[in-house]
């Protein structure tokens, strides 16, 4: 998709204005300069209104018509608001236009009543323009609404992408841009279908079966509810963690508390190390139990057995394999060891033959010998087991003592902090900060406990679902309709499961691709040996290389923003590559997209502005950037100027109450004042 021209009529403070977008690849950036409140965000909203009938205004969200226009109109007059965009998509030119008609109801009605709204989409065929039948759908195919967040974004909160609790957004972005959503949707549809078949089963089922199904559904609802609760709790935990980090950073910045806060951090790190050692010892203990734990308990058994076997051997109850074969050889030779002849049938022959043991299976003696032979080994193992376990337990106790000591020291730091009187620039004292930190810690602990309880409930409910499913499966007294529906339900569930697996694999594939890209983009702009990564859980993380070890970095706003932009850039890049590589898969088509960014330099310091400006031109073929003069001047201008194809300035006139009204004009020359 390539943007050509945007025309606005009576859209908020834009009465009648036009923007032509830069389209040359080397100079693909369009910059729109404007001071705060001059209409930058309104322009961003013009896109989302046109495409999806969505706007997000902070002030007077219902007022779409230009204030001046409606103020000057007579009561009963109908006014047209329109946004018209000319663009090219997959080698076809389009004009999309959304029009809304408002009627002024009274003298002091400045909002107007919405009378009619319509969207048209025309496309060029040869030299003539034709209209598309279903403009909403067509537009959504060209730029899916779920992608809009990614391509029309408010730079001031883009860093959220790399902030906390945004795995979902990252996942969603990944699947959106790759067209994977279709798989997700199919899975969902199949699940819905399975649900409908279940309705059918229920309808035709016996009372008992219907009851089971109802119960199963109730539990499913409960689980859904619990899942939501769990997500909320997780978010709260993360939020609390961020709050704690923020407080600690404040303590680090104050002269009085800096050293103490740092020391506390060291203690904590030491404690973590000790805890890791305890964990290791626990594993060693488990290994001991696995290998030798049965031995001490088995010793009496083996002893008794060995003693008994020995007795039996001595009594000849257990024959010696050796003596039996010796006797056999004597009988065969028909001569005894004493020289007497042994003739079969004689009494003497029978006496010697009787010396052979009972007729028992071969190997009995070997079996007995094996048991006796292992006595020493078992006894050695027993001692080793107790020695090792004692050693581990003592070591663990020492570590626990050390951990307790460190915990006390950490608490002492807290008490010391409670006695300081320095204040932050905002007037908050160290004790206040520390007290707040502590209450946040407690809050976090409580939340973690809460999460555990929720997880337990989920587990229990899931177990119940499993057993209900089995019971439902086993119900036989059903009518034909119920049986058919049940089979269909089962089929739908199976296919949904299969698709779900395929979907997960694809998503992971794209994640890995996107990960490679993000490394490149992020690596080229970020300093300090930083690398960015999208983890298996779809978290955007930043790592720092510290003496060969990879440490996760607490992201500053700037770094978060860079990481987020690098991520968006990586997706745009993958989609573009995919599109250019002759789509070999219908689910994986990709596409070329422009980026429209409102204030991407908003909260950044100078050095980060330079880095962000360096990365933005790499993100997409066509870029529209909104910026205030103070954001633009300096490093941003230095870096981006060579790639800028068009520039506009928003000239905002706030009007006075009586006869002039707020209005922004879009100009091609700089206007005075910021």
């Amino acid at each position, binding site marked *: 998709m390539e943007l050509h021209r945007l025309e606005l009529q009576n859209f908020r403070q834009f009465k009648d204005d036009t923007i032509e977008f830069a389209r040359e690849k080397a100079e693909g950036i369009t910059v729109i300069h404007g001071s705060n409140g001059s209409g930058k965000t309104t322009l961003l909203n013009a896109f989302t209104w046109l495409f999806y009938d969505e706007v997000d205004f902070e002030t007077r969200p219902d007022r779409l018509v230009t204030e001046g226009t409606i103020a000057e109109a007579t009561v009963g007059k109908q006014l047209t608001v329109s946004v018209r965009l000319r663009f090219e998509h997959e080698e076809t030119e389009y004009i999309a236009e959304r029009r809304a008609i408002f009627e002024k109801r009274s003298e002091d009605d400045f909002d107007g009543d919405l009378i009619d709204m319509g969207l048209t989409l025309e496309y060029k065929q040869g030299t003539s323009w034709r209209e598309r039948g279903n403009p909403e759908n067509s537009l959504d195919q060209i730029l899916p609404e779920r992608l809009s967040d990614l391509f029309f974004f408010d730079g001031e909160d883009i860093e959220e992408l790399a902030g906390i609790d945004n795995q979902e957004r990252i996942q969603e972005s990944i699947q959106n841009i790759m067209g994977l959503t279709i798989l997700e949707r199919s899975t969902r549809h199949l699940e819905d279908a399975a649900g409908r078949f279940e309705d059918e089963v229920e309808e035709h089922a016996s009372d008992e079966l219907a009851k089971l199904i109802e119960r199963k559904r109730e539990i499913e609802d409960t689980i859904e509810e619990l899942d939501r609760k769990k997500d909320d709790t997780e978010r709260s935990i993360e939020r609390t963690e961020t709050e704690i980090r923020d407080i600690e950073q404040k303590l680090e910045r104050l002269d009085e508390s800096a050293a103490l806060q740092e020391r506390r951090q060291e203690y904590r790190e030491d404690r973590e190390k000790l805890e890791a050692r305890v964990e290791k010892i*626990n*594993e060693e*203990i*488990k290994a001991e*139990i*696995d290998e030798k*734990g*049965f*031995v*001490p*308990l*088995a*010793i*009496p*058994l*083996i002893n*008794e*057995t060995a003693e*008994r*076997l020995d007795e*039996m051997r001595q009594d000849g*109850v*257990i024959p010696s394999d050796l003596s039996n074969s010796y006797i056999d050889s004597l009988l065969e030779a028909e001569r005894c060891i004493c020289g007497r002849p042994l003739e079969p049938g004689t009494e003497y022959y029978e006496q010697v033959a009787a010396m052979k043991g009972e007729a*028992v*299976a*071969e*190997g*009995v003696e070997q*079996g*007995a010998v*094996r*048991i006796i032979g*292992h006595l020493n*080994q*078992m006894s050695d193992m*027993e001692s080793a*087991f*107790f020695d090792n*376990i004692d050693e581990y*337990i003592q070591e663990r106790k020492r570590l626990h003592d050390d951990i307790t000591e460190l915990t006390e020291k950490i608490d002492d730091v807290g008490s010391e902090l409670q006695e300081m009187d320095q204040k932050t620039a905002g007037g908050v004292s160290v004790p206040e900060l520390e007290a707040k930190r502590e209450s946040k810690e407690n809050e976090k602990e409580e939340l973690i406990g809460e999460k555990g309880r929720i997880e337990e409930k989920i587990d229990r409910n899931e177990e119940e679902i499993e057993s209900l499913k089995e019971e439902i499966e086993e119900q036989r007294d059903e009518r034909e309709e119920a049986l058919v529906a049940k089979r269909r339900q089962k089929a739908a569930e199976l296919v949904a499961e299969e698709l779900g697996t395929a979907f997960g694999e694809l998503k992971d594939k794209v994640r890995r691709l996107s990960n490679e890209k993000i490394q490149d983009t992020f690596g080229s702009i970020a300093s300090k040996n930083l690398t960015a990564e999208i983890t298996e859980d779809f978290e955007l993380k930043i790592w720092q290389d510290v003496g060969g070890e990879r440490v996760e970095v607490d992201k500053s706003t700037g770094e978060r923003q860079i990481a987020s932009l690098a991520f968006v850039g990586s997706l745009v890049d993958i989609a573009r590559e995919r599109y250019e590589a002759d789509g070999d898969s219908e689910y994986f088509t990709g596409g070329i997209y422009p980026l429209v960014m409102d204030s991407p330099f908003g909260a950044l310091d100078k050095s980060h502005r330079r880095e962000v400006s360096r990365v933005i031109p790499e993100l997409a073929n066509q870029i529209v950037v909104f910026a205030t003069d103070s954001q633009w001047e300096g490093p941003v201008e230095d870096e981006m100027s060579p790639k800028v194809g068009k520039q506009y300035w928003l000239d905002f006139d706030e009007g006075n109450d009586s006869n002039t009204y707020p209005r922004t004009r879009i100009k091609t020359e700089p206007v005075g004042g910021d």
Partner: protein
Amino acid sequence: MNFISYKKSELYDRIVDEYDIFQNSYDFMVFLAVMGYQEGKVVREGYKGDDSAGTKGQIGVENFFANDLYRVIASSIAFQDTEDPSALVNSELQAEKLAQYAAGGLEIAEQEFGSTAGDPTNVIVEYIQDHDEEDSYQGTLGEIVKAFDDQMMGVEED
């Protein structure tokens, strides 16, 4: 391949899978069998578990008998239970007896560490330490305990 069938419970999942205390189910089973033997607890019926109740476990005989000590344990249990030396060479009988005592041990284990919240490793260690007969009646302390026991018995008899 031949299998030894044994009675399984949720405790197996906890001890073997969740907390990784024993590597294999059969390692835990041997432990349970010696426990059952030591405590004189044996289950003669239903010791193979019930498939429909999900309590049936199976062990490959070869896996099991590949361990020398496990062979010693299984043949000792079978011999003690039957008092027949031929049990020493009857592996089918050994498997059966092992499963019977393991099912007995399982009942004790459920009581001893089945209700432990969290990781039961320490409770298992303590159990082993407490049931180490050799050590508990050795040395001076052992004699005192014994003498004390005798006295108590004497008092009761009077």
